[in-house]
């Protein structure tokens, strides 16, 4: 059962208390009724579906977030694809190709989910290419060694999962459902990344050093992935409060970051990797790991375009898109010809 529209009124989790206003002609104050309907869905933790009326700001927030998420999957293919032709064994080559392909699939699900909000994939891609929409800034860092393929899986996908598991309960149905499949695959990727580093950390001295170096370079950008502080004195505004009220976001950036640190520190210990933070210490009182200050200046600098790979990532994407224009045009022309042929056959 997908659509709320078909929910059974008397079933648990149905929409008994939130009847849909039928139409403008029969409903006085129709706009208010729609708003009340939407508020009721959110209050009862129901899913909003594409056919439901929703505030324009909610729709715009979702389009921005889902597009950014889809763009991150697509741009995120690049740092890992960088190692496909050089993977050190055929088994690793196969796993990496499958992984990069999964990311392409995630991008497609998410663009499709975003399209249910009345935008077109090509419109979103244009915005990515022109810099009007962002992608996760983590992908503006380079993959310098094979161990980076492991660190991306372990830390970057690990952080992404922290962010994405709560999105499986996001108030917007198509997004929530897309995230269920995405999360299953991402958790494979996280384990695969860990296993790359596990193998390296049991290997030669050079391999161990490679693993440590990758963790040194990816740890802080991974913590930045959760976004700037949004609780306590350091809170820097942003979209958190509104997104939480709408049931799009379930936990604050800071809570998710803490969960990630708490999950990852014991894994680093198992790997024999020292995380590059002298302030990292177990806090008995809080029941959490304390960690040192994050360099938010670096975060903003990279986000605004001054990172090692910002230019390169977009250039590669735009080049692929432009080089492929004649192919997409050919596919459209062929489809049109086929349709015309079928029509004339039907007439005949």
């Amino acid at each position: 059962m997908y659509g709320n529209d078909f929910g059974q009124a008397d079933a648990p989790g149905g929409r008994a208390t939130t009847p849909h206003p039928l139409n403008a002609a029969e409903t006085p104050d129709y706009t208010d009724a729609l708003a009340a309907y939407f508020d009721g869905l959110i209050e009862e933790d129901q899913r909003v579906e594409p056919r439901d009326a929703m505030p324009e700001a909610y729709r715009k927030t979702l389009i921005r977030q889902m597009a950014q998420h889809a763009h991150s999957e697509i741009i995120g293919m690049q740092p890992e694809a960088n190692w496909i032709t050089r993977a050190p064994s055929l088994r690793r080559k196969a796993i990496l190709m499958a992984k990069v392909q999964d990311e392409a699939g995630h991008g497609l699900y998410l663009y499709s989910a975003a399209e249910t909000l009345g935008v077109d994939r090509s419109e979103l891609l244009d915005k990515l290419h022109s810099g009007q929409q962002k992608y996760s800034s983590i992908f503006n860092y380079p993959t310098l060694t094979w161990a980076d393929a492991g660190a991306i899986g372990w830390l970057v996908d690990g952080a992404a999962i922290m962010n994405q598991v709560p999105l499986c309960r996001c108030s917007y149905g198509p997004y929530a459902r897309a995230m269920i499949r995405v999360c299953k695959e991402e958790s494979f990727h996280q384990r695969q990344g860990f296993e790359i580093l596990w193998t390296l950390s049991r290997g030669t001295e050079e391999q161990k050093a490679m693993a440590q170096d990758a963790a040194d370079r990816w740890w802080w950008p991974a913590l930045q992935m959760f976004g700037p502080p949004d609780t306590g004195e350091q809170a820097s505004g942003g979209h958190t409060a509104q997104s939480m009220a709408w049931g799009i976001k379930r936990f604050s950036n800071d809570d998710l970051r803490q969960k990630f640190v708490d999950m990852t520190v014991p894994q680093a210990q198992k790997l024999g990797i020292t995380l590059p933070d002298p302030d990292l210490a177990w806090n008995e009182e809080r029941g959490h790991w304390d960690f040192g200050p994050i360099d938010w200046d670096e975060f903003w600098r990279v986000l605004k375009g001054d990172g090692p790979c910002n230019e390169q990532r977009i250039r590669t994407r735009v080049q692929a898109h432009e080089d492929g224009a004649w192919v997409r045009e050919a596919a459209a022309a062929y489809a049109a010809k086929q349709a015309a042929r079928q029509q004339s056959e039907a007439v005949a």
Partner: protein
Amino acid sequence: MSSTDVRHVHYLLGLGDDALVYAQRLGEWLTHAPQIEEDMALGNVGLDLVGQARSLLTRAGEVEGADPLRDEDDLAMLRDEREFRNVQLVEQPRADFAHEMARLLWFSTYQRELYAALLDSTDETLAGIAAKAVKEVDYHRDHATQWVLRLGDGTPESHERMQAALVAVHPYVAELGEDHEAARWAAEQGVGVLPSSLTDAVNGYVAGVLEQATLTPPDPPRWHARGGREGVHSEVMGYLLAEMQHLHRSHPGATW
């Protein structure tokens, strides 16, 4: 090892190297394809070919029976250029999308006929590999067919590019049907098939696709590639191997 076994090994290496080297080229497409669906599709084809290569190279190592046995990675990463037995078609550099579809159409059609024939191989492991692979390459051939139709019968530009791609790829096609020494032995033993026995079916299928796609069959090329099965490659091969092997070779004996 008897001389008979060497030819068995060489036959298997030819099949495995074709798959491995083409997978290497297809892997280069990821993030550069004309649309995201195609990043996935070409990645998927490449992934199937890596899988075939792993099985075929593992089998080649078993039949070779060296002490210690050479495994798939020993064979993929530690052989030099002259020891690779793939046809030159698969090592050619990645060019435009029409070129890739021309190459994929011919190669997957060849693989489709090849694996179908190998279902009866007296090498039971090879027959098992073929049984899995024949289903995979059926999809590859279908994918290439659909694109050659779209590009051939799409826009004037795509038609022109597709036609040019057929001409560019054509000199590398004949080698797929050449009866090299290992293949002659394999066919006699029932291990393999004579490549020339597949040629009519391959050419017939491709000709049908080209006709439907409003494309002109390319004229016989002035030259054609030869020698891949004996380890004679084009100059691009060394660079391909350098990229594929360098990390593995930089850490002798390491586990990955």
